[in-house]
């Protein structure tokens, strides 16, 4: 059974954002940075809702695709998420930040959809499961063997990518290579690298949303980054 719950207990110790000590309309537990926005939403300010949708929908869609197979389904999940946000807003108590709450609604909806689709729940929903726990970051053949004086040192150095033309680093093809590498990751690794490196979430925010430990988060991030770097290295070498 997963240890995740819809509303992880998060009463005081959470590191994302500061809670406001002021009494406010949004409610005493709401994170300071969310207070104004929640008040606007609860009073029906459409521009505030629209900017929230613009701010998070791309990330929500990316995360939904970890769970469901098609773009169309992922879009539906995002749509459902926003509707559920509005319906649930009056009950939102601020046990997590608004952002984390919205993304948790998304992952719950996406998992439900995935189950209905007949897909099994990704590994990531079970804490501390990483099936390739011993997989090295870099192919062991890149290093000198154990009987060598310089055992464990590079046979040939990785290249300095700064010497590549910038167009190359930023090309559509390079982006496509990164996308393919991410799609090939295990679901838990995908979730973590999307949140941390693509969306720029903090480690604490990521752990809070996914209900995983700091160590587990770091292991997943390490595997994910190592694989994406490795895919880029192969791709740059080829051309």
């Amino acid at each position, binding site marked *: 059974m997963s240890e995740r719950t819809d509303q992880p207990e998060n009463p005081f110790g959470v590191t994302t954002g500061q809670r406001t000590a002021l009494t406010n309309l949004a409610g005493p537990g709401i994170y300071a940075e969310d207070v104004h926005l929640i008040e606007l939403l609860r009073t029906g300010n459409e521009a505030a809702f629209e900017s929230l949708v*613009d701010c998070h929908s791309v990330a929500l869609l990316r995360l939904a695709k970890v769970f469901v197979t098609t773009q169309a389904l992922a879009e539906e999940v995002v*749509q459902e998420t926003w*509707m559920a946000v509005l319906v649930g807003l009056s009950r939102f108590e601020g046990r997590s930040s608004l952002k984390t709450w919205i993304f948790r609604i998304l992952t719950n909806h996406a998992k439900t959809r995935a189950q209905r689709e007949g897909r099994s729940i990704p590994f990531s929903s079970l804490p501390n499961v990483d099936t390739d726990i011993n997989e090295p970051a870099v192919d062991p053949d890149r290093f000198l063997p154990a009987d060598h004086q310089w055992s464990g040192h590079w046979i040939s150095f990785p290249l300095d990518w700064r010497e590549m033309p910038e167009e190359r680093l930023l090309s559509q093809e390079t982006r496509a290579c*990164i996308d393919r590498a991410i799609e090939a990751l295990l679901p838990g690794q995908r979730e973590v690298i999307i949140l941390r490196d*693509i969306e720029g979430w903090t480690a604490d925010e990521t752990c809070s949303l996914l209900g995983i430990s700091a160590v587990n988060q770091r292991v997943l991030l390490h595997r994910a980054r190592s694989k994406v770097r490795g895919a880029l290295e192969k791709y740059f070498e080829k051309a």
Partner: protein
Amino acid sequence: MASADSLSCQEVVELVTEYLENTLISEMHERFEQHIADCPGCTNYVRQVRLTIDMLHQLAQEPAFPGTKQELLQFFRNWKKGSGFC
């Protein structure tokens, strides 16, 4: 020459995430930086990882969210009508 307690490159590549996350204990952090200072291969490796992170972050706003926003805004207006604001 590698001394007994110096890290190998193979160890460095497994520590790079903890190094970048700043979660290595200080003694290990120092050993990591000492290795990097002497090793052009690992210097490049850490640079590659940093560049990978930069490139990943550039994906953040693509692709644009498709055109279902109008539906959502309509839902918002209906929700607003139906929910009796404070």
